[in-house]
């Protein structure tokens, strides 16, 4: 086995928010009928996570399970855990029209931290980042400038961003540019 490295090798940018390549991360795509009781049971058995509702992301320790579409979930976990998770899911989903696939190598994960993190993402995406419209517990699939991306907020001052590995450099530079010092807009500032 060769040693797994993340797309940008843990790159960091410090602007008015701090952007980091999160390093090797496990991701498992799960497809199936989210409306079927047996599907939810199988997913829970393998991951320990409850089935997320529409656009929801649920957490179980280091595992995060996100609703991606009516027939798709994304499990984010430790890199070493992903192949085992995919295999466990394949086992519990046996007999169902469903699949689980380790897609860790096809993705990149970034973390953006700082009070202005909502604003940085809002510069790049048509998603409504206003508090009240979006916040912790929700996974939003959207667009970051020219590429597809998904993100959620682990807490009020950070965003976790998923993109395809092939566009990792573009997405990282894009977010870094949006976070560069002096480019603060002051959107979503807490009321005085």
């Amino acid at each position, binding site marked *: 086995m060769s040693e797994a490295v993340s797309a940008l090798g843990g790159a960091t940018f410090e602007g008015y928010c701090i952007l980091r390549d999160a390093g090797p991360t496990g991701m498992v795509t799960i497809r199936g009928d989210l409306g079927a009781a047996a599907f939810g049971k199988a997913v829970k058995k393998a991951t320990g996570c409850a089935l997320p509702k529409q656009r929801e992301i649920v957490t179980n320790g280091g595992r995060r399970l996100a609703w991606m*579409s009516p027939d798709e979930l994304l499990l984010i976990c430790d890199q070493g855990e992903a192949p085992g998770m995919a295999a466990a899911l394949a086992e519990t989903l046996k007999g169902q029209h469903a699949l689980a696939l380790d897609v860790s190598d096809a993705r990149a994960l970034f973390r953006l931290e700082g009070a202005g993190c909502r604003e940085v993402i809002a510069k790049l995406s*048509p998603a409504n980042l206003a508090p009240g419209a979006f916040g912790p517990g929700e996974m939003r699939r959207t667009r970051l400038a020219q590429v597809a991306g998904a993100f959620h907020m682990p807490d009020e001052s950070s965003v976790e961003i998923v993109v395809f590995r092939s566009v990792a450099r573009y997405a990282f530079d894009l977010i870094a540019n949006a976070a560069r010092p002096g480019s603060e807009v002051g959107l979503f500032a807490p009321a005085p």
Partner: protein
Amino acid sequence: MLILDCPYCGIRADETELAPGGEAHLTRVGPEGSDAAFESYLFDRKNPKGVHFERWRHAAGCGKWFHAARNTVTLEVYGTYPAQVTEPPKALLAAISKKVPGWEGWQ
């Protein structure tokens, strides 16, 4: 800007998250059809000035295809609905008829 509610993920998506799929509810003509019918299936479109039923995909989002009814003149959106149907929902048709007096219907 065109803004459509995706019936699958519930996001109010602007057109930069969407990909257009042209006229909705076309009946596919397969190998059994005549050349004229096949040509019509491929190329003939209503292109109305007014109420239009379209296919859209939430491309930079949940990825699902869905249907939308909108007005090509006023850009008013009458509604969106799932892709797994062969005709628009009755309630939507009734609402459009009410709003657009003299509308000739969707077919």
